[in-house]
């Protein structure tokens, strides 16, 4: 186990360095450079003024020097300033991150609460109406664009039934938990449906595999009640596979949050990122992308380690 843990933990900083290189390159990919892109066509600077600005921001340095300087600042907690608000990027992100994390967590709860029971029903009662319903959900859930589902939910539940605020929005959890839930339930449902479909399909497939194994047949042959066979023997092994997909799904939740926050006007990190993109606020774009990718890397590492603990076979592969 120690060797497995070490292997996972050694690859973590290497991946994070790679993530930082790609994030750094996003802004350096801009045709021309960040300064001319930021100024747009409305501001005309002489070549001398431009080169002075490039020197001021360090853009005249070789790429690796620029990267190391940028990385050094990030490590010290300085991700620059937002050109839109004038605030430090870290402050902007710190204000928005909890909202996105709450949304992602709520969506994950929706996904697991819907996906696991549907997957189990589908595997335990094949070719029945509940199975057909569950499989239909698995197909449609994956095909539903979350921005469309969100728009339809707003249309029906806000404008026709008045069950939710018309304009979307967000209330802090600590300030008013009931209002927070009212604002968050539909964005969470929107974000969670596709993940629920993935969880349903994975649960179904894993349970069908486990239910066909010899030890389950033996448990049945010993006369154990069907419920006990499922709960005590099949479910444990079936759920291992579901845990492995959770790490990947964290990425879906964090990426999908960008779209869902826009639809429901939730003031999270995704919305901050979109505004920053439209206003060419590159320091915020870089900071936001780096934070989300870092969270994803950590989530995947945690799931990998967890997986190693739950299933000893993994440690030796």
């Amino acid at each position, binding site marked *: 186990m120690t060797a497995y843990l070490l292997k996972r933990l050694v690859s973590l900083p290497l991946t994070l360095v790679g993530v930082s290189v790609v994030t750094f390159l*996003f802004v350096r990919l801009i045709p021309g450079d960040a300064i001319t892109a930021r100024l747009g066509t409305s501001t005309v600077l002489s070549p001398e003024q431009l080169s002075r600005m490039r020197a001021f921001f360090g853009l005249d340095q070789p790429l690796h020097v620029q990267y190391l300087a940028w990385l050094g600042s990030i490590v010290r907690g300085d991700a620059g300033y937002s050109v839109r608000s004038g605030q430090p990027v870290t402050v902007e992100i710190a204000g928005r991150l909890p909202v996105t994390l709450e949304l992602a967590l709520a969506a994950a709860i929706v996904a697991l609460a819907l996906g696991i029971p549907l997957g189990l029903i589908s595997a335990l009662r094949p070719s029945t109406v509940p199975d057909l319903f569950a499989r239909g959900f698995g197909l449609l859930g994956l095909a539903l664009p979350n921005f469309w589902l969100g728009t339809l939910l707003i249309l029906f539940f806000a404008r026709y039934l008045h069950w939710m605020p018309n304009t979307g929005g967000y209330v802090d959890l600590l300030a008013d938990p009931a209002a927070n839930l009212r604002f968050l339930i539909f964005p969470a449902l929107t974000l969670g449906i596709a993940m629920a479909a993935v969880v349903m399909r994975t649960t179904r497939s894993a349970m069908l595999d486990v239910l066909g194994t010899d030890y389950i047949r033996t448990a049945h042959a010993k006369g154990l009640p069907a419920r006990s066979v499922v709960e005590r023997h099949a479910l444990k092994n079936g759920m291992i596979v579901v845990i492995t997909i959770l790490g990947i799904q964290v990425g879906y939740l964090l990426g999908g949050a960008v779209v869902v926050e*826009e639809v429901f006007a939730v003031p999270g990190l995704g919305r901050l990122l979109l505004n920053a993109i439209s206003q060419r606020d590159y320091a915020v774009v870089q900071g936001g992308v780096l934070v989300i990718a870092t969270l994803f890397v950590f989530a995947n590492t945690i799931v990998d380690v967890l997986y190693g603990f739950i299933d000893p076979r993994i440690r030796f592969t």
Partner: protein
Amino acid sequence: MASSTREYVSPRRLLENKAAVIGLAIVAVYVFLAIGADWLPLRNPVQIVPANRLAGPSWSLPLGGDSFGRDLLSRIVYGARLSLQVSASSVSIALVAGTGLGLLAGYAGGWVDQGIMRAMDVLFAFPAVLLALGIVAALGPDPKNVIIAIGVVYTPIFARVVRAPVLALKEREFVDAARGLGARASRIIVRHILPNLLSVLVVQVSIALSWAVLTEASLSFLGLSAQPPAASWGVMLNDGRQSVELAPHLAIFPGLAIMLAVLGFNLLGDGLRDVLDPRLRR
């Protein structure tokens, strides 16, 4: 040289699979509409007709008119063209780049394998939508840049999917035999290994196309792909959102078009996987 998986690629077996047939039919309709849009009796998708502003579905306008009085049916059909163009181009980029890198990594092994796959791991460390968003943010909102972005995002998936079977295939007897006969590495890869990857690649392409349709629609919904007045499903849905209370059809039909396209590719992918790799059935 015999290839063990090519024998499974049989049209008859594909037609016996319900999911694959339904998926194929949906995809075929979209491809037909995308290619034949110019020859179909449709209105100009960008022509503004004030009298048709927010008009509901009728005989003359089967899916109604949008907020500028443009024919929604025509815009959805032309939207299929844009969506399929972007998806097919981006998946082609990912297919070529990812397959090339996966073949190289798997066949060469050693530090080449390590270098390529660690680079792929880094791209995998980004949520797909976020990586695409970051690339489009840097390059600018344009369908061409969306093609590049989605291509980059899906390259590591193809590389991983290809590398694993290459590791096993390069140890097989028929590859040893070819090597013994003096075949060069490039010939072994192209003539003997690549044909054995066809079934894996066909399934992966179908699944990647469904993701690409969704990602393109998401990016255009966020204003990062085609710009108005272009007929793009995501743009249409975003426009429709503004007047959803007065004209719900503006939000319903473009979303349905996206969902059906994704469903078609997903069903086709599932069906192909069942037919080409029965071990993965379910």
